[in-house]
């Protein structure tokens, strides 16, 4: 199979993924005013995780708290059939918090406060800008490193692949309405740092094959070299991604509720990264070199 010959199909598929992601992001922005379901790291607010002594039904809790601006979800408790509740409210003053705790106690009896987090609205305001700056810095860092180690066109192709991975991941996060907080940024940066590995394996082989041409060819057939390189390293690209995805899958399935979204985001990102490394990186490079 020739990967480069079919490159139009791979580009179209990659383009489709990106377009779908952008559509989701745009749709959520237009309908809810927010691209992501921003967590309290960004918006400020209070999150309580409570375990009631007596079983409480979600519907009952929602009904009793309908007067409050509170977002309630359930969490499956560890080693028990019981459910804990996660209550997310806008930022509350201390007095307001006491009042809220009183309402819970009065209506549903004693409870254990498993965790409590309060973040001031001002804390989150800088965060979005900071996150964006961070991502741009990492991407430029990658571009510079790869240009330095390989060449500019390799770096450009790799960074385009990374943009694809990031957009697809963010689109999925937006689509699934996952709580977007600081750990999401960490997940995205890890995806960027890791999914470039498979791309590098391919470009490393391209570099080696170009060097080993017996006589220096004035204009090597980049498409053929890229294709041959890709085919010979395909197995290891798949296997390295596979073992990493296995490990993240274990975290997703068994790591517990607090880390599930973090793991899910990485799973999506690594999958997107595997696609872009195998199907986009080498064809993009061949395209750039032919045009340049």
């Amino acid at each position, binding site marked *: 199979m020739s990967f480069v010959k079919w490159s139009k199909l791979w580009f179209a598929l990659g383009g489709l993924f990106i377009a779908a992601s952008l559509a989701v992001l745009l749709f959520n922005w237009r309908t809810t005013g927010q691209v992501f379901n921003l967590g309290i790291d960004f918006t400020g607010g209070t999150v309580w995780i409570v375990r009631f002594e007596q079983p409480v039904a979600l519907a009952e809790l929602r009904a009793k708290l309908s007067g409050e601006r509170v977002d309630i979800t359930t969490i499956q408790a560890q080693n028990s059939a019981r459910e804990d509740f996660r209550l997310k409210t806008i930022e509350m003053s201390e007095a307001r918090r006491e009042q809220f705790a009183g309402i819970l106690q009065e209506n549903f009896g004693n409870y254990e*406060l498993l965790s409590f987090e309060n973040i001031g609205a001002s804390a989150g305001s800088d965060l979005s800008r900071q996150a964006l700056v961070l991502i741009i810095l990492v991407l430029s860092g990658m571009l510079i490193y790869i240009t330095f180690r390989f060449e500019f066109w390799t770096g450009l192709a790799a960074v385009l692949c990374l943009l694809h991975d990031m957009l697809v991941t963010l689109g999925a996060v937006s689509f699934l309405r996952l709580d977007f907080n*600081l750990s999401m940024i960490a997940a995205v940066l890890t995806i960027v740092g890791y999914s470039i590995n498979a791309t590098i394996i391919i470009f*490393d082989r391209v570099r080696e094959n170009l060097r080993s041409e017996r006589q220096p060819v004035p204009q090597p057939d980049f498409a053929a070299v890229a294709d041959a390189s890709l085919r010979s390293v395909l197995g290891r690209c798949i296997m390295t991604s596979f073992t*990493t995805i296995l490990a993240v899958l274990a975290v997703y399935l068994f790591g517990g509720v607090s880390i599930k979204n973090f*793991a899910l985001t990485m799973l999506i990102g690594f999958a997107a990264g595997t696609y872009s490394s195998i199907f986009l990186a080498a064809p993009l490079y061949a395209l750039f070199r032919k045009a340049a």
Partner: protein
Amino acid sequence: MNKATLNKTLFSLILVVFLAALWIISPTLTPHWKIKLGLDLQGGTSVVLRAKPTAEVKTITSDVLNGIISVVENRINGLGVAETAVYSRGSDQVVVEIPGASASENARILELIKSTALLEFKEAEWVPGDLTLLSEKERQDFLGDGELAAVPRYNNRGEIISEDQIVLRRTVMAGNDLKAVNPSTDEFGRPVVALEFNTEGARKFYTATLRSVGRPLAILLDGRIISAPNVNEPISGGRAQISGSFSVAEMQDLVIKLRAGSLPVPIEVLNNEVVGPTLGQDAIDQSKFAGVVALLLVAAAMLLVYRFNGLLADLALLVYSALVLAVLILLNATLTLPGIAGLILSIGMAVDANVIIYERLKEELRGGLPMLSAIDNAFNKSLSAILDGNVTTILAAVFLYWQGTKAIQSFAVTLFVGTLLSMFTALVVTRLFMQNLYQLKFLQPKTQREDA
């Protein structure tokens, strides 16, 4: 040194390092060496404070932040909790971490930390009548540069029964002239705070009481009047008492605050997080299980795909797992939940280098090379791809560490340490295993047959 001796030396060296790592992570042999858990795992309270500039202190310098840190540290230490941490973050923030503190203790901790605790003594006088009967101008004349305030009167149950109006005049002294602050009781057995001034403070206090004979001397904490006792005669000896209507706990907290001194600038609470012990323990149990599952899955995958070489990679993975835990312990790194996720992730990444090398080995063997030179070639030619790939991951980890919060930094540290160590185990440990084992005669023909 010839190649065989070099190999033997390296082999024993790695064995020693591996055993040392096992010794370090063993909870029975070295109980004092264990991984420090973040608050999200062991439970506790964390508070992020932001320093607010005032008219006097216009910019928050590192001196100001250090001042806040030392005061807050003193206050927290007054609670008698072990292993608390107070450190600065960014240009104007201070993070306070108190392990083990529960949700019920959180409110008290917040109250204790966030007050400026500025103690002031002000000359004052009671308003003898009703000021509302005066005209605006007459009132201004009466008040002068003073400030009108109210002093609550309490009954013996601590309820406010009335408020007396008072005019606060000049500040005669502040709480920084204190030598000792002690909890005490007054003649009725009610909790009071006993103050002892230093020489300078005693002199100031004498002057203040001398000037105030027949009038009240108001005692204020953070601008709020605690009490305003009437001065009957000048007080020498440098001792005073603050009585108000405190509970015993309030009195104790006031003692802690006054002992620790006042904050150089006011602060606000940005974040406050409490994780109960139940949730933390759940998280530890679950992530341990996830880690074991990940290790088994990855090891099984390598074994299935690469057979004997896969087994060698799994051995290297075992060495890696021991090393990474030992290094994290030695670095005294704090492990948070994202940090554990990073550790498990690194298990999946650690075998990547092995995969790259093994696939290369297959190619070299297909090219007709004998096993040992094929192994050498595979390692040498894979080096650049492994290096370049890991450098980019390390780059991401460094950026994350630089910008992240404590939980994210822990993830960055495990990613960084994991990536570095996995390069070592794949490039050095696996290579040594392979070079030595394939020299054994009985292994050679079998594997070549397999690859042919």
